[in-house]
């Protein structure tokens, strides 16, 4: 065994199991959605498939990552391998950027074009003939369909919870950098502290986000089916929220690993990848705060 040459793993059963898990999730999930939209209730076969898929997927991911971690701990990964991981993570984050870009694009399009056109402004303002009573505004409180499709009564005030959340996330980006510095200086105790701090900030963010949703649904009438404002609002903040949750979970795994003595000052790519991801999620939030909440 040499560590200088590139590591090629032996055959593995995780990929095929992951594919099976995925198809169970998809086929089961699809069946569940169709059942739900047809007004059905209760457990059906698709539900079982979906949960079996979720179980299978969690098991596989857990084992697959443990596999990778033990290979890494056994020193089987060369510097070149480390570079591969870095490149992969960068490109993965780029793909996530493009995923959010699609939603931001939709938001800009409806604000710049669709809503004004429906209200009689701009190049295609004749559309107003179809919606004579519609007045375009943003945030959109009254939809073109009027009372058939009621809009929100009110929207989230950016200067309360969202502002707090912005502060939380930005500080968490700072604290994770403290953790990184500490790790590089081999101060394990401080690393554990700052990382835990970061995770708590993230969790608090998610908590407030949930509070905000409860308020939106309960009091403001701001829902997924309250027209395009609600659609873009929940799509963007919702997918962001999912990413924060996932990021916090990954950080938590990293925290566990650090507690168990993993990582060295110059070999800790797992941690760095998690940190990159966290910064990315943070950047998305700043975009959201500006374009979804404030403007």
């Amino acid at each position, binding site marked *: 065994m040499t560590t200088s040459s590139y590591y090629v793993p032996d055959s593995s059963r995780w990929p095929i199991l992951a594919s099976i898990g995925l198809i169970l999730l998809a086929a089961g999930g699809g069946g569940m959605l169709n059942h739900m939209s047809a007004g059905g209730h209760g457990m059906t076969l698709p539900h079982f498939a979906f949960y079996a898929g979720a179980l299978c997927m969690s098991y596989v991911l857990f084992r697959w990552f443990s596999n990778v971690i033990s290979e890494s701990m056994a020193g089987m990964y060369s510097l070149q391998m480390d570079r591969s991981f870095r490149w992969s993570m960068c490109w993965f984050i780029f793909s996530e950027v493009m995923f959010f870009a699609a939603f931001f694009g939709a938001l800009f399009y409806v604000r710049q074009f669709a809503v004004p*056109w*429906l209200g009689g402004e701009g190049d*295609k303002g*004749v*559309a107003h*003939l*179809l*919606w004579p009573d519609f007045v375009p505004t943003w945030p959109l409180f009254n939809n*073109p369909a009027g009372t058939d499709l009621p809009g929100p009564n009110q929207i989230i005030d950016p200067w309360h919870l969202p502002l707090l959340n912005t502060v939380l996330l930005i500080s968490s980006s700072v604290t994770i950098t403290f953790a990184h510095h500490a790790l590089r200086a081999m101060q394990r105790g401080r690393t554990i502290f700052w990382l835990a701090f970061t995770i708590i900030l993230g969790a608090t963010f998610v908590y407030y986000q949930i509070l905000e949703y409860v308020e939106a649904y309960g009091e403001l009438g701001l829902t997924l089916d309250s027209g395009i404002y609600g659609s873009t609002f929940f799509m963007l903040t919702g997918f962001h929220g999912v990413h924060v949750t996932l990021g916090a979970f990954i950080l938590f795994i990293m925290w566990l690993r650090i507690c168990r003595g993993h990582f060295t000052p110059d070999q800790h790519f797992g941690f760095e990848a998690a940190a990159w991801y966290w910064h990315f999620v943070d950047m998305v939030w700043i975009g959201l705060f500006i374009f979804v909440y404030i403007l």
Partner: protein
Amino acid sequence: MLTRFRRCLISAMMMVLSPAIYAAWELNMPQGVTEVSQSVYDLHMLILWICVGIGVIVFGVMFYSIIRHRKSRGVKAAQFHESLSLELLWTAIPTVILIAMAVPATTTLINMYDPSDADIDIKITGYQWKWQYEYMGENVSFFSNLTTSDRQIHNQDEKGSNYLLEVDNRLVIPTGKKIRFLLTSNDVIHAWWVPALAVKKDAIPGYINESWTQIESPGIYRGQCTELCGVDHGFMPIVVEVVSPQDYQVWLDAQRSAAQAQSAAAQQDWSYDQLMARGEQVYASQCSACHGANGEGLGSVFPALKDSPVATTGSVERHIDIILNGVSGTAMQAFMAQLSSVDVAAVTTYERNAWGNNTGDVITPQQIVDAKQ
């Protein structure tokens, strides 16, 4: 399956024998009957010939090499593999050619995009699978449906010369007037295309697209829906009839008096048999596309009406309501605007009594007039 094969065979024979199939070959874009369509045609020919020209040169050199520079002729390969000046040259020449194409394309487009100063506005609405034409300010509005019979489509009758391109109510417009079309849709995206006018525009639900035409020569011009819009996308043709301005006025007046006659008919008494006969016709032309010729429905999306609770045990009011107002968010559209009260009464009666539904209910036109209020 067997019948299907037999049908296939019979139709194959009929096709070979039928003279219609030997109609003139159409190879190129029609020149059309408007100034715009002529300039589009010219543009098309220009770019076509430019491409042919470039093709002749490029493929000429390629086939020359293929024929002359082959190993079997004992040629030894040259070794050159770079030339900056060549690369620059064959970047620059196409650029110039493209600019030469872009100029006439731009002027034509700007002209096509100017619907201002129109004499007549017509609102065109796409429905699954028919067109509605509304002469704005004239109080004239009607639907236009395919009239080619199901028997022709299924090769049981010989196909007529305007197979699939014939409708019950044509869009009638006068010569020499600039006509603005306002296109929209009631359900999915359709596209309104008449090649001879070089007008093709999408009809998008909730939005309006503008387009225009001006035709000098009377005649009949045919086109089709050109955006996939569901099962019968291939069966929603467009027929435009261009007439002199005088004939156009006569036609408009006739349309208006026909509408009056219809509302008068709603006041009359209709017998069960009359309603059933009329209902059968309405059903065949309006409803059978989705609900099947014998009310058996189609797949899981389009419900059967035969033995359906709505058309048997359910209340008459609800049945009428569905037909008049549709079921929102589904393909079941509101027929209030499309059918006269008599037609709705007839089709409701028909659905409640045909195919063994035998409820015995008779719905009068007056009931529909009331329901509309």
